[in-house]
């Protein structure tokens, strides 16, 4: 049997992000549930978040972010042969989101699948996209993290409605011929199914339930070794990282992991302040905004770290386009 011939490595060619138009402030939430701007800012670090319109779907947001990444990559839709949508909040389970998104972007008959690793989804999917390019299963991959968490939130539950939000972020992953130009490092991933009941939706009519304190303890103790290992496997010293972009779960989790990572030069993403927690969208959305603002030089090493429900987690070092 013949086997595919892959590329020497893969790298991210371009980013794109999309946020819904509607801004929901802490004061707006405090009008309907027992909370306050000060409480939300001090506990989770969020000042405002974006919430999708009632008719705006996960696929709509994925198309918006994916279209931007595709345009920025300089590739045409015909160059893409795999579309992955990382999401845990599709409107329906059948059909998947990725095939519709591909069709709407004019990408003809690519491989198309959704991936659910919740808030770790983007990093899981990035590892899969990189592997697909390296094995020759795909030439160029469009990967989008897109979430409409607002439709899975009990808006009377003050412990969750202040945190979760909507949005999308996308990347185009393509091949390199020289391994030295590879820009997606080895993934360090894992799961802890024994903690499945810490973040969950009880049934198909239910809403997200989170045991905040248990998740906080886990995130602030279990993840910095994963982050360090991802650096080690990529051969990058944390001290040389230009940025650290963890999932934007809670600013205090982000800061606690950053402290333990020991990367004093790294710009630490704080996109949660104005984006909220957008699960699998948060990492590419944060990075697309940091790159738009010119905060990270081209080619610089950046550590990504996704983590959340499952429990699932994954981290890898990338170089930015």
């Amino acid at each position, binding site marked *: 049997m013949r086997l595919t011939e892959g590329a020497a490595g893969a790298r991210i060619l371009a980013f794109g992000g999309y946020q819904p138009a509607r801004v929901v402030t802490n004061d707006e939430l405090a009008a309907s549930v027992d909370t306050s701007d000060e409480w939300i800012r*001090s*506990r989770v670090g969020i000042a405002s978040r974006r919430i999708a319109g009632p008719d705006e779907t996960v696929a709509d947001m994925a198309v918006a972010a994916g279209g931007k990444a595709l345009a920025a990559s300089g590739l045409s839709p015909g160059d893409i042969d795999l579309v992955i949508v990382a999401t845990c909040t599709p409107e329906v389970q059948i059909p998947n989101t990725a095939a519709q998104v591909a069709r709407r972007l004019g990408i003809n008959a690519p491989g198309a699948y959704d991936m659910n690793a919740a808030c770790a989804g983007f990093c899981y999917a990035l590892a899969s996209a990189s592997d697909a390019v390296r094995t020759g299963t795909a030439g160029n991959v469009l990967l989008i993290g897109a979430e409409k968490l607002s439709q899975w939130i009990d808006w009377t539950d003050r412990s969750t409605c202040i945190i979760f939000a909507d949005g999308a972020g996308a990347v185009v992953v393509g091949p390199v011929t020289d391994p030295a130009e590879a820009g997606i490092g080895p993934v360090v991933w894992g799961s802890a199914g024994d903690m499945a009941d810490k973040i969950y939706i009880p049934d198909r009519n239910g809403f997200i339930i989170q045991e*905040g*304190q*248990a998740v*906080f*303890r886990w995130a*602030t*103790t279990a993840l910095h070794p994963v982050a360090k290992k991802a650096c080690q496997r990529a051969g990058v010293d944390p001290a040389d990282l230009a940025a650290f972009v963890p999932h934007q779960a809670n600013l*205090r989790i982000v800061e*606690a992991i950053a402290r333990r990572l020991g990367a004093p030069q790294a710009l630490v993403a704080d996109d949660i302040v104005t984006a909220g927690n957008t699960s699998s969208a948060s990492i590419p959305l944060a990075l697309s905004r940091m790159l738009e603002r010119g905060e990270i030089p081209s080619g610089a090493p950046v550590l990504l770290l996704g983590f959340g429900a499952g429990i699932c987690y994954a981290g890898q070092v990338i170089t930015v386009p």
Partner: protein
Amino acid sequence: MAMTDQEILEGLGEIIDEVAGVPADQVTPDKTFVDDLDIDSLSMVEIAVAAQDKFGVEIPDDQLKDLKTVQDVIDYVRRSSVSA
């Protein structure tokens, strides 16, 4: 090796200074975490984690919620380190 209350208090003061930015000299046995030291539930988790590293005593979440004062933590650490 058993720790004295004073040793635990000093260690706890260092932890609380680092986690919550409360100067160690304000951390006295009679202080309550929430009302006197303005420490919230997430900082309490960070304190519990740091206490585990420093004293080798695990403070699970269901025990943590009952520890209201600095003295409560000192007693917990002393009891647990003796039984360990």
